[in-house]
């Protein structure tokens, strides 16, 4: 596997290096670690495509500080152990200038300490449960104060006050379900049930029965990965879809909306800081270029995960341009000077205190294997992490603060 990835990466990098031979400079090493296989490949494959695309764009524009970028993608195969292995390799062997990596929060927490220890700059580019406070890490996706806080009142206004939560059984699901509980209560609602499922669970029969017994107005899915897609299938097969409406903090992060048939998926409401269907000139221009580059193998981008990888690379690039160096501390300081990137999802601004981002948030509904954007909330700050983390006061912090929610 390893050798194959290297060969592929070498093959990819070779023409870039030749193209910029005139610059006569060593390429800057960018490493990506995302699952291209296994249960999480539905998220990983589009993320890799967007990462590669961002790097190619930068190279086509002449690279960074006179040097081309060379990207190496590792496939940890949805296996946490391989994440730490590849992160170590990226830091020690590849001597990467930056590592863009991680999909699940479990994988992020596996590699974040490794990259911190080896002083290798780290970008985590997906929506997650918030609270990471680490000067070496930049989290460019949206967090519950940005997405769940919009999603919950939106659907409660529409459908009612009783919410039943189904969540994946690891840090993302555990913490996000707390956020859902918090926002439900703040809006005068009630959580009537909460179930956790390991990532490999495929039989949701008993859960569907329990939901029917609890008679909620809304089902909130915080389920993650390929195995959990069978929940949406079984939910529709049990005839429940027309009876209890569903919301999700995760659906659409990958290609779920494509895998599900319209009968199974239509009407599910989600919130992300990007949807492929976002109707702006910048997004249209991006999609046209993206499609022209990738042709028939263009992945569907769905929610924000893939787009945030594109934004993450561009934010990092802006930091390097400002620092005029790839030295880690210089880049971090440059990124903390108030970097922003106006891209397909709108304006993304890095918050110097938390290393999180202020983004536009969209609420959308699954429709005919895609999404239809219903509402936009421009420039939402990462207020959850901001309430617990200040890296300017505590530059040596390396933790994930779990926001205390009274349950």
């Amino acid at each position, binding site marked *: 596997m390893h050798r194959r990835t290297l060969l592929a990466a070498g093959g990819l990098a070779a023409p870039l290096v030749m193209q910029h031979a005139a610059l006569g400079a060593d390429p800057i090493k960018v490493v990506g670690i995302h699952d291209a*296989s296994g249960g999480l490949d539905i998220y990983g494959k589009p993320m890799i495509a967007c990462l590669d695309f961002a790097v190619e764009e930068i190279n086509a524009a002449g690279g960074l500080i006179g040097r081309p970028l060379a990207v190496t993608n590792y496939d940890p195969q949805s296996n946490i152990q391989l994440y730490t292995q590849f992160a170590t390799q990226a830091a020690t062997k590849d001597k990467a200038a930056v590592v863009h990596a991680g999909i699940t929060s479990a994988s992020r927490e596996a590699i974040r300490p490794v990259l911190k220890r080896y002083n290798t700059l780290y970008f985590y580019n997906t929506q997650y449960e918030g609270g990471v406070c680490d000067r070496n890490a930049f989290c460019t996706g949206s967090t519950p104060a940005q997405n769940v806080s919009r999603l919950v009142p939106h659907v409660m206004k529409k459908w009612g006050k009783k919410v039943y939560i189904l969540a994946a059984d690891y840090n993302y699901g555990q913490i996000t379900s707390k956020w859902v509980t918090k926002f439900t209560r703040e809006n005068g609602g009630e959580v009537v049930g909460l179930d956790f499922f390991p990532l490999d669970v495929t039989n949701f*029969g008993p859960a569907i029965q329990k939901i029917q017994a609890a008679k909620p107005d809304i089902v909130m899915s915080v389920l993650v990965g390929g195995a959990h897609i069978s929940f949406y299938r079984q939910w529709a*097969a049990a005839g429940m879809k027309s009876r209890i409406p569903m919301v999700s903090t995760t659906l659409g992060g990958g290609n779920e909306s494509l895998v599900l048939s319209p009968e199974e998926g239509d009407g599910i409401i989600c919130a992300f800081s990007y949807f492929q269907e976002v109707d702006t000139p910048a997004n249209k221009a991006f999609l046209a270029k993206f499609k022209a580059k990738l042709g028939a193998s263009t992945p569907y981008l769905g929610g924000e995960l893939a787009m945030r990888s594109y934004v993450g690379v561009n934010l990092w690039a802006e930091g390097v341009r400002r620092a005029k160096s790839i030295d880690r501390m210089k880049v971090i300081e440059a990124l903390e000077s108030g970097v922003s990137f106006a891209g397909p999802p709108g304006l993304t601004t890095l918050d110097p205190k938390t290393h999180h981002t202020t983004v536009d948030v969209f609420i959308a509904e699954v429709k005919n294997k895609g999404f239809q954007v219903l509402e936009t909330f421009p420039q939402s700050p990462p207020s959850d992490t901001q309430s617990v983390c200040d890296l300017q006061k505590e530059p040596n912090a390396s933790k994930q603060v779990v926001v205390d929610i009274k349950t």
Partner: protein
Amino acid sequence: MDAILATGIQALTGIASLLLVSLGLAIVFGMMRVINLAHGEFLMLGAYSAILAVEAGVNLWVAMLVVAPVCVGLLGAVVERLVIRRLYGRMVDTMLATWGLSLALIGAVTMAFGNSVAGFSAPLGSVQIGAYSTSGYGLFLIGATVVLLLAVWMVLRFTPVGLIARGTMQNAGMAAALGVPTERVYALSFAAGAAVSGLAGALMAPFSGVVPTMGTAYIAKCFITVITGGAAMLAGTATAAGLLGSVNTIGTFAFTPVLGEVLMLGVAIVLLRLLPQGITGRFFRRAL
């Protein structure tokens, strides 16, 4: 009332799934004493054959009920001829060989179809039970399991083929002395076990995602069910599946899916401590 009925159906679905995935192993291990560690991969191949057939435009029911068992049955015949036949009576060697086979099959399928999740939606829509609605496919699964169990039982109990098979398993030497081609009986039994596994894998496919490694999720449960069942292949597997499946479902309802699995394994361990020969070591000893 509705709630009890709905929960009952859910428990029956749990039992049926357990019985379904274990039946092929019961034939191979219970009858022939061959420890087939590639059993999970036979299930996986059944699911993949059904998916491929559906994608090629074959009717869903034909794909699940005909294509999958035929494909995996044929594969079973080949495996028996090439591997298992050389290792009868050498239990540890068989384990090693079939474990290798299991790894090779996972690797081959990963190479051919990629390590990603495939699947198709459950047919048959939903069924209303009072205030509850449940998937019609779950009910079909229960029915299919009962029919399959009855079919295997009737073949073994009432047909000359079944009589010869049972005789060969009891005393191969004597059967051979009476002119039974025991080698062919073994080969057919193994292929039949594989076919049943393929059918089970295809029937489970709409419920679970289909990945090359899906067999590993089932193999432990299958062995526990068959071993807890004990010597009487069909009665044992059926009672063990009934017991363990109910414990699992009740645990899932009362607590969480994780605790449901833990409780099931706990019950299996306690049972084997009390009844080391399995359930049918003490009860239903004369059953099949």
